[in-house]
Every structure is written in structure tokens, then in C-alpha cells.
């Protein structure tokens, strides 16, 4: 079976990309600015100014001090998406004036997010059937939280798209050598999107090595072994340096001419030489290993080149970057009436939250698909299981591992657990794929049981697909644009989740629900305290005409005329402070989603 999609499926994928892009753009206006998003807006603007400087005064732009000044802001995250946001805003809003500023920033996020259904369809239709691919693709963005995150100029959905792209290209490259360099490029783009992508080589290396080993002859295996020895030698060398120098000294003393550089260069040179040798002696094995080689060579290169902040101080700034994410602060998070503030976090948290936030009609095929995949992979290890349920194979393992990897990674009790589902979004396209296969099997079964003709089987598939997607679709429409508040039927919807004691919302964007009231009820010059909304977001609401420009941000309830408090279990004190400052516990209005308080607005009584 060829892994290449048919021309029809390519066109369907293109249509899915286009439709998703248009829908996201058409529905973005209502989506509020999350706390991080306004920071990325500001960073994107700042970086686009640097790019402009680069065009006009390249020597100045490329100096260490100017680069540091331009890129120091928000250097917690790499540059790819922020650069795209900035260029897009500069073109679509500043130059052409076609869109409001926020839409200008967000357009690249729509374009990247729209890759997901397209790629899912390409993959699903090649693996199983067009029906499986299409269902899987459509199912992805009728999940309310996924639809919400796809609107944001943030990195969670883009990195999910990049993760899928890398794995898909890797899978294609295992069959077709022409895809290998593109796998490397995709990894580079993924690394340049968000730090999650640094786990991709960890996930894919065993697949590439194992496939190459299986395909290799005796001579090829000797070369692969030597590659392994070189890698182990490098790790040993690095460990030795760590022991001798210690971690801080290892970073600080890393110069162009240093033992560290020698080790890294020796590793890269050794692996390149051995790869070339493998290509000469065992072409079949090389094809399997080529995507990994490309990932190793092209990926880091793109990552380094795309981020000027690294150019003059690569080692210490990279070390800071990894350190920042490895020791990220823990934000409070409510889970079954407990406010989780510090590790260890509950082991089942990610699985439970996934189950409670997915529409149940999609949770079922995803779970069934995951179980089938697990059992089939087990069959590769236990022949009796394979005889009963069928064998797994490399693709099955690839889907299973990628469906579970991000979920299991975040499940680690020491890893930060805030952020709803956004931190394990890279797993979700793979779960959608597995759901697509289950749906396809179910329709096949139905058609067989009812002895339907091919044409009637197709109609049955369409009707059933619409029926299964409908609850998810209605849920998404109902909760939009308040996606961080969404819960599925298993939780009892949004009110059920409130009674269960789950996180009500996060990221402050739900404030859009009360901005029209604030606009209508504020006197000119009023001081407005938008709790949890940072100063940049306040400015963005004003410059996108979502909040009147003649009101001013207040630092807290004490100096505010109006206060809009975001309901978070850990922030109850701040609402009580409003009672104290305003002398009343009676709100003036609020955003109540399905009865649950989300944002509560108080107005200071007239003296």
C-alpha cells in the first residue's frame, strides 16, 4: 500500500485547510485576548520592527546589543510564530488596513492550525479509507477547546500542527527518500514553534533506528552499530565533562574552541560520515534512517538560524531556555475541589480532564481506537494477542506512541498541570486519527449487517458521521468563544463541572462577555479593574474597539469605579476585596455560562 495520498484526497485536504482557515478567521472576532496572547502581540510587533531595521540598516540590526534589545522581550519562546504574527499584522493591518490589529496577528495561527485537519485527512485516507480520514479531520475542530485554541496567536495549537507534520513526513520519508529533508525542515519549524518539539527526536529515533535495523543487511547493521557507538561515546564524553567541570562551568566555558565544541563537532561529523557510508553500502537501510539524519542536521540549524537572540550567545541562552521550561512555575489549578498548587499532581489528571472536556460522541471512538491500537501493538510482543486481534506494525506503534506521548509526559506528577488541555494538544490529532478508523469500522460493520449496497453504505456513512459529529458541533457552537470553560457531557457540561469542582476557566479571555456592558455603563474617564486581564490585553481590547478608549485601567478594586472579577477558586479573596472596597456584595452584571459565574462585575455605588 502506498503512503502517498490520491489526487482526490489531496484536493480534499486542500479544501479542509481552506475551510478551516476561513471558519477560524470568520469566528475570531469574538475570541478574547488571553494573557499570553497579548504578550505575543507585543513581542511580534517589536520583532517586526527589528526585521524592518534589518532591511534598512543591516549592520546595526545584526549587532549583539541591538539583537539583545530587540529579542530579550519574551525570550521564553522561539521566534517562528511570533515573526509570522508580526509580519502578518504589519501587512494586513498596518500596510493594507484590511483587518483589525488582532486579526492581523492571528491570521498565521489560523493558517498553521488549518494544517491539522488537512494532514489528518491525508494520513487517515492513506492508512484506511477516505471516510476514515474525513471523519477524523472533521472531528478535530468540533472539540470546543481545540476550536478555541486554534484562534489564538499562541503556540499550543501551532506546535500540535507541527508535531503532526513532522510525524507524518517522517512516516512518508520511511517509504520515499524525497521526504527526508522535508522531515528535517519540519522539525526545524517545530523547534522554532515551541519547546515541546524537542521531544520529537526522542519519540521518532527508536522508530527510525528499528526500521533501519530491520531493513539492513549485515554490512548495514555494522554501520548502524557504529553510529550507536558514536552516539554513546558522545554521551559518555559529555558525562565526563559534566563530572569534571560541573553543569554551570560546562555551560560558561563552552567556546568555539573548547572540549565541548570538539565533542559536538565530532558527533556530527562522525554521524554524517557513517550516514554516507550506510548510503553507499545499504541503500534500503539508509532510506529508513534518512529522516532521522535530516532531522539531526537540518532541524537544529533552522532553530538556531531563525532566532537571532541565540546568535551571539548560543550556549548560555539555550541553557537558560531549557532551564526556564524545566523549572517552570506552577500556577494554581482546581481539580475536584482541590486547588492544586505544587507537585506532586494527581497521576490521572490528564486522562480525567481529557475525558471530561471531550464531547462524549468523540471520546468513545477515540478510546476504542486507542484500545485497539494498544492491543494490536501488544500483539507484536505477544503472538497469542496478535492471533486474536491482529498485528500492530510500525505505523500502529507510531500512532499509539504519538497519541499517548504528550498525555503521558504531562501526566508526570512533577510537570506543571495548569493550562487545561493545551499542553497535551499534540496528542489530539493522533487520537482523532484513531477515532476515524473506529468510525470507519463501525460504518463498515453497519453496512455489512444491513447488507447495504456501496452507494447506500456511503449514504449511511454520511448520515452516521453527521449524527456522531453533531453533539460535538453543537457544544462547540454553544460555548464559543469561551473555550476554556468548555466541558463535555460526561462532566455534566459546564454546570456539572462546576459542581464537580473543576477549573471554571483560565487565561482571562472570557472578559469579552462583559465588555459591552462596561462600555454602556461607564462614564468617560472611569477607572476599570479587569481582574486577571494584563495591561497589554487591556490596551488590545481598546485598540480593537472592544472596550471604550476613554476608560482607564485600575490597579485594583481600591482605585476602581468598576471591577470585573474572573471566577477562579484560588482568587476568591479578590472578589471579597471588591466587596470591601465597594461596600457591596451585589454584582451589577456578569458572564454566567449555563448558570456558572465566569466574570462578575461590580460597580462602586455613588457616594
Amino acid at each position, binding site marked *: 500500500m502506498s503512503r502517498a495520498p490520491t489526487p482526490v484526497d489531496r484536493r480534499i485536504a486542500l479544501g479542509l485547510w481552506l475551510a478551516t482557515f476561513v471558519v477560524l478567521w470568520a469566528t475570531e472576532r469574538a475570541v478574547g485576548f488571553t494573557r499570553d496572547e497579548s504578550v505575543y502581540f507585543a513581542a511580534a510587533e517589536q520583532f517586526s520592527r527589528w526585521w524592518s531595521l534589518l532591511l534598512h540598516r543591516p549592520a546595526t540590526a545584526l549587532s549583539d546589543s541591538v539583537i539583545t534589545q530587540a529579542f530579550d522581550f519574551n525570550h521564553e519562546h522561539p521566534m517562528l510564530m511570533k515573526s509570522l504574527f508580526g509580519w502578518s499584522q504589519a501587512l494586513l493591518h498596518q500596510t493594507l488596513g484590511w483587518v483589525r490589529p488582532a486579526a492581523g496577528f492571528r491570521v498565521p495561527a489560523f493558517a498553521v492550525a488549518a494544517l491539522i485537519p488537512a494532514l489528518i485527512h491525508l494520513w487517515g485516507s492513506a492508512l484506511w479509507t477516505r471516510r476514515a480520514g474525513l471523519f477524523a479531520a472533521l472531528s478535530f475542530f468540533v472539540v470546543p477547546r481545540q476550536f478555541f485554541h486554534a484562534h489564538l496567536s499562541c503556540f499550543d495549537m501551532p506546535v500540535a500542527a507541527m508535531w503532526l507534520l513532522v510525524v507524518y513526513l517522517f512516516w512518508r520519508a520511511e517509504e520515499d527518500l524525497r521526504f527526508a529533508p522535508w522531515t528535517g525542515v519540519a522539525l526545524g519549524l517545530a523547534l522554532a514553534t515551541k519547546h515541546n518539539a524537542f521531544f520529537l527526536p526522542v519519540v521518532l529515533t527508536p522508530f527510525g533506528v528499528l526500521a533501519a535495523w530491520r531493513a539492513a543487511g549485515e554490512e548495514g547493521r555494522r554501520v548502524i552499530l557504529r553510529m550507536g557507538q558514536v552516539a554513546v561515546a558522545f554521551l559518555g564524553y559529555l558525562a565526563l565533562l559534566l563530572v569534571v567541570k560541573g553543569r554551570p562551568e560546562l555551560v560558561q566555558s563552552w567556546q568555539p574552541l573548547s572540549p565541548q565544541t570538539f565533542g559536538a563537532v565530532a558527533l556530527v561529523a562522525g554521524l554524517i560520515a557513517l550516514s554516507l557510508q550506510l548510503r553507499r553500502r545499504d541503500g534500503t537501510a539508509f532510506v529508513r534512517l534518512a529522516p532521522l539524519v535530516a532531522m539531526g542536521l537540518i532541524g537544529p540549524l533552522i532553530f538556531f538560524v531563525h532566532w537571532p537572540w541565540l546568535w551571539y550567545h548560543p550556549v548560555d541562552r539555550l541553557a537558560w531556555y531549557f532551564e526556564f521550561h524545566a523549572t517552570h512555575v506552577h500556577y494554581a489549578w482546581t481539580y475536584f*475541589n482541590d486547588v492544586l498548587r505544587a507537585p506532586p499532581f494527581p497521576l490521572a489528571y490528564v486522562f480525567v480532564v481529557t475525558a471530561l472536556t471531550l464531547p462524549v460522541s468523540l471520546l468513545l471512538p477515540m478510546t476504542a481506537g486507542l484500545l485497539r491500537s494498544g492491543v494490536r501493538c501488544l500483539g507484536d510482543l505477544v503472538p497469542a494477542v496478535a492471533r486474536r486481534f491482529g498485528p500492530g506494525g510500525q505505523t500502529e506503534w507510531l500512532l499509539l506512541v504519538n497519541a499517548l506521548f504528550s498525555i503521558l509526559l504531562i501526566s508526570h506528577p512533577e510537570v506543571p498541570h495548569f493550562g487545561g488541555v493545551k499542553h497535551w494538544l499534540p496528542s489530539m490529532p493522533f487520537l482523532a486519527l484513531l477515532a476515524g478508523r473506529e468510525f470507519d469500522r463501525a460504518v463498515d460493520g453497519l453496512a455489512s449487517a444491513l447488507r447495504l449496497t456501496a452507494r447506500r453504505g456511503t449514504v449511511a456513512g454520511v448520515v452516521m458521521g453527521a449524527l456522531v459529529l453533531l453533539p460535538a458541533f453543537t457544544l462547540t457552537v454553544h460555548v464559543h468563544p469561551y473555550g476554556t470553560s468548555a466541558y463535555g457531557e460526561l462532566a455534566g457540561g459546564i*454546570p456539572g463541572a462546576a*459542581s464537580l469542582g473543576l477549573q471554571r476557566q483560565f487565561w482571562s479571555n472570557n472578559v469579552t462577555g462583559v465588555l459591552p456592558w462596561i462600555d454602556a455603563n461607564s462614564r468617560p474617564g472611569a477607572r476599570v479593574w479587569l481582574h486577571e486581564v494584563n495591561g497589554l490585553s487591556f490596551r488590545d481590547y481598546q485598540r480593537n474597539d472592544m472596550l471604550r478608549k476613554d476608560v482607564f485601567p485600575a490597579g485594583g478594586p481600591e482605585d476602581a469605579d468598576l471591577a470585573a472579577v474572573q471566577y477562579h477558586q484560588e482568587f476568591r479573596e479578590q472578589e471579597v476585596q471588591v466587596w470591601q472596597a465597594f461596600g457591596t456584595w451585589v454584582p451589577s452584571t456578569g458572564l454566567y455560562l449555563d448558570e456558572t459565574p465566569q466574570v462578575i462585575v461590580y460597580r462602586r455605588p455613588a457616594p
Partner: protein
Amino acid sequence: MNETAHRLRTAAPALALVIVALLGLGFQLQLPRAFPTDADYRAVAGALAAARAPGDVVLLHPWWTERARLFVPPEIPVVGYLGDTRDDLLAHPRIWVLANERLPRTPDADFRRNFLPDRTPAGPSQQFGPLTLTPYRNGRARRVILSAVDALDRLEVSVEGPGGAPAQPCQHNGARVQCPFDATVNVAWHEVLYQPVRCLFVIPPGGGRTLSLRLPDAPAADGLLLEAGIIWEHAWLPGRADVQLQLESPAGNLHLRIPGGHEGLFRGETPSVAAGPWTLRVTTANTQDRLVCIRLRALGGPP
């Protein structure tokens, strides 16, 4: 028969998907029936206004259904916080429970276990759309003879040094008592483990010094109820020092300890007490998170 069973088995995944999808749709279609309209809430407010009596309070069930605050007459306090079913609400002889049991996953077991003991219906329930309004006689209610929050201007506040050093008096400065060593006392709303509490908000001095609050002319009572806790997120931080509270009254000494890193209100009650002075001493070695919320009330019998 085998053929039918085979066909059923083959179609089972599709049937399961369709049934689950229909259940999901059904859930979404019926959910709005659980949501009261503004008119329902206004009718509730009307009923409360018509029947209200001094000391009434409204308790929300489930606790988070706070949209009611928009409508309930402002003179009637509304209680709705995580854990409120355990609240004695002892200042309130009558509790109006505003319940919406049509909402999914309403925590009824918690309500029965923690709220209902010592509470009996004091009248028939009234239905307003999905809302049920039921008055309960609060068997846990007590007469509040005096609350320290109402006596701030009569409090004599000073900082006592370690090792018998002479006390340094604090100054009443409007609504706040300002003391040496950055200690203060005022009356304010604060949150203690999600519960909004109007309390004596005390920042005691650190470094082994003691904040002393003396009420020279307190009345006789069946008992003095002392409740204290660290506010907000300052409570849970691990590694914090304990806060010690020592209440001297004609009934003797009552000692209360707020353990470092623990959330919630800690309580202690004296036996019946004759009229005379009360002195509450607050001490902590903690120099950072010392934000203590204190309720001290002289209680009588049932109202």
C-alpha cells in the same frame, strides 16, 4: 439465530456510536431546562422580600449558583462558597435554601450530610421554574450578644515585647488601628478557605512580639467563640510559622493555634463567661504571611 447474532455483533459499534451521540444530543437539548430565567429569579426575590425577617440568610445549592446575587434583595445576605453546607450560620435563625436540583451533578449527598442536621423546614417549598425556595429553621443558630468586629473603636490595642518588655500602645486611625512593628488591626471582608468572612483583620508583629487586643467592658455570655485563620493563598504556603492566639476572659484562658501551612478557620469556645474584660493575644514568629482573620463573638442561647 446465529446469523442475527452475527449481524447484531457486526453492527454493534455503529449502534453504540449512534446511541452515545443521541445521548449527547439529548443531554444538550434538555440542559437549558435547568436554567432559571431572570423572571424566575425576580419571583424568588419578590417572595423573599415579602417574607423576610431579621436574621434571614439565603444559602445557594449548589453553592456556585451565584447568579442569584443579582436579584436577591441586598439586605439579605447570600451565602454561596465551596464548603458552605458545613457553615453553622449561627447568626441566622432562618435559612432560605435556594436550590436548583435540575442542574447536573448537584451535590445532594453533601447537602444532606452537612446542611440538614439540626435544620428543619420552616414552611412549604416554593417553586420558581427550576428553582426551589425552602425556609429552614436553623437549629444551630445562637444569639450573638457581641461581635468584636462591632467593637473595634473600643479595643485597646498594644504590642507587647518579648521577655516582659513594656507594651507599646497602638493608635486608632480612622477605621484602622496602627501599631509599632507594622502591626495593624481593622475590620474587613476577607477569604479564609473560600469562605468570605467579615472579621478583625490582624497583622501581628513578627519576631516574638505579641499583639494584644483588650475589650475592657465585655458582657456576660453563654460562651465566647473564637475563630481565626490565615487569609487567601497565604495560608497554604508550606514552612510557615504557627500563629498562637490566647484569649483571657472571666471564663479563663482559651488557646488556639493556627498551624503553619494550614487553611481554614480554626475554632475554640469558652464555657459561660461573666461580664468583664477580654484580652486576645496574637503571636507569630512569621515575619511574612501573618494575615490573620479573627472572629470573636459572645454567644447566648438559641434565638
